[in-house]
């Protein structure tokens, strides 16, 4: 029994750091006024580049390996998110459609690259993840837990205590007001989207690397990016609430992983899919219950046009 609890904690920690980081990313984009539905795709790209960096730094000092591959994943996500920023900010495209395109593209790109790297028809990449995992009090803890907590604190401070945060939030609520006091709305929205790309990229990497030693990019990140969007909404676009929402969703997600090995759960003989479904069902219930009190940024999803006032 304690082993099973430890396992549950392990997976919950793993998933909650992923969901939290990605949801924080989504939060920055939406607080600046851009709906980032491309998080799923950004995670895939971040995960892919992170994995490749891990392969390349194989055998190096673990600290360097972790630093290089995490930064590579973040930058890859950031660069990829630029496509969303360009389409939705400069070209005033429909943000949802643009994001969907990037999701579809990401999986295709990842598969093409993975197959090319393998030189075969398989899009599965192998790597070792020992540098990313520590053992604390008998629980395997991965480095992303700490990275996630740092991002959580940073996000809160940036959003509520700095000039950047104030301006970013103004652009998501009332871009015309921000513009009228000389704030460059486009720039702020770029910052918001790029931050989300950075966090999303690292989040994708954090989802793939600590858990397993090989990943088939055919499956992308299996809906984690969308789940992160639900976490963000449930967390009402607020860092601290996102933190708790991430833990809540991760619990469900973790159950799927340990259902087979946990005796009292396996006795139920429920198929694994039921547990896989749970976070999505939970998010629907939660969204329905909280729908009346949404604190969504007012101007999100609306392209800002300098000409129209």
């Amino acid at each position, binding site marked *: 029994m304690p082993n099973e609890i430890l396992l549950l904690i392990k997976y919950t920690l793993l998933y909650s750091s992923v969901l939290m980081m990605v949801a924080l990313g989504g939060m920055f984009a939406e607080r600046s006024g851009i709906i980032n*539905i491309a998080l799923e795709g950004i995670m895939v790209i971040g995960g892919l580049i992170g994995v490749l960096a891990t392969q390349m730094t194989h055998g190096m000092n673990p600290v360097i390996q972790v630093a290089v591959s995490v930064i590579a994943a973040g930058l890859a996500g950031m660069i990829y998110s630029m*496509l969303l920023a360009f*389409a*939705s900010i400069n*070209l*005033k*495209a*429909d943000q*949802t*459609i*643009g994001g*969907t*395109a*990037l999701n*579809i*593209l990401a*999986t*295709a*790109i990842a*598969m*093409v690259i993975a*197959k*090319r790297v393998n*030189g075969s*028809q398989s*899009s599965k990449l192998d790597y070792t993840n020992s540098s990313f995992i520590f053992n604390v009090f008998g629980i395997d803890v991965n480095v992303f837990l700490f990275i996630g907590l740092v991002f959580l604190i940073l996000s809160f401070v940036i959003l509520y205590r700095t000039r950047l945060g104030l301006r970013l939030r103004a652009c998501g609520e009332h871009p015309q007001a921000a513009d009228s006091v000389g704030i460059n709305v486009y720039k702020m929205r770029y910052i918001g989207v790029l931050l989300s790309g950075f966090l999303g990229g690292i989040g994708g990497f954090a989802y793939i690397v600590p858990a397993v030693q090989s990943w088939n990019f*055919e*499956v*992308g990140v*299996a*809906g984690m990016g*969308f789940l992160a*969007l*639900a976490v963000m*909404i449930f967390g009402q676009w607020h860092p601290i609430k996102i933190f708790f929402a991430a833990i809540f969703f991760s619990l469900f997600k973790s159950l799927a992983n340990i259902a087979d090995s946990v005796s009292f759960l396996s006795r139920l*003989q429920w*198929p694994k*899919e*039921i547990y*896989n*479904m749970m976070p*999505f*069902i939970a*998010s*629907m219930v939660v*969204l*329905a219950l909280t*729908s009346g009190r949404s604190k969504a940024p007012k101007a999100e999803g609306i392209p800002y046009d300098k000409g129209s006032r």
Partner: protein
Amino acid sequence: MNHLEKLKRGLSTVLSALISVAIGLAFGFIILFLLSLSTYASAGEPFTLKQVFDTAYNEGFLRLMKGCFYMVRRGLKTEISQAAPLIMTGLSVAFAFKTGLFNIGAAGQYTLGAFGALYCAIVLKLPWYLCLLASVLFGAVWGAIPGFFKAYFKINEVITSIMFNWIGLYAVNTLIYGGGTGAMYCAKTTKTWVIGSGVYEGTTIPNISVFLSEKPQGLGLYLKDTSIAIFFAIIIAIILYIIINKTTFGYEIRACGHSQTAAKYAGISEKRNIILSMAIAGGLAGFGAGLYYLSGVAEWQPLVSTSLPGFGFDGISVALLASSNPIGVIFSALFIAHIDVGGGYMNASFFPREIADIVSGIIIYLCAFMLLFKTAISKGISRVFGAKKELEGGK
């Protein structure tokens, strides 16, 4: 004036779609070229750029563009069989767009439609037309749910649809697999049972050969084994076009799509409209799955449970490329099916078939700001025809 205006609106739509396609294909070629280059480079032997280019063109791009005609005997059937569900998912997304909704849930509705059709065929052994009906109903229910959430809880249909995509996928796989002992599951192939013969006689949609002579010639020869699903898809596209443009129901849903508030003012029940149009969109996507799986060209694979069916998402490209015009959807679906089949014929040791997905992804990306092209083209046409814009006052 009247005709010029119509021409302008129509032409700029078609041209902007073609521009998106051209740019998408251009990017596709660049990727092919780079892949070709990297293959030559890693081989370690000397090579010329012309070789690189020729490989990219002959073994990649040309086959992508040729699509089914690269191997017409098998290819044509595959392409037509794929085009039918693509038209349907495309119509599903397009119809929702007309109501101002983004049906990203076509993939989930398609999944449920597949389940409905296959359940009726394999377990209940019903004739194919009843199975098709079941696929519509299952898809419609799965579409109506996000509509319901949108109408009564004001939750964005995009987020709900995405959630129900995954819920639907997991649910259907669980039900079909049934722990390895599901009635629809064949453990040997890890797929659903092959339908159409034996105890499943009459569960598949008839083939085109019913329209053909005993010994068909030319195209008929390649198509005789293809099911008549494609005709259903085309007929529905035409019906949908008429509903949207010529009926008061179409007037209502388009009003809702353009302006919820104005529609409400006009006494149109927006709640009813949202649920209804999502249900219709879902039914269309579900029907697409019915057309595909009841054609006997593929079986459902419940163990591939981590990714959603691609037809659902391709429906988004199809709809966008057609500017949500149901007739346009027929052509854009054929195009997407064409490059998808072509993607499979590329030389796999150089070029992964997912390049076709990249092209279609780029096309969606471009479609997101197609309006930009449209405005530019429309201005260009005005200039060509020397028409003066009679803008009077106001801002």
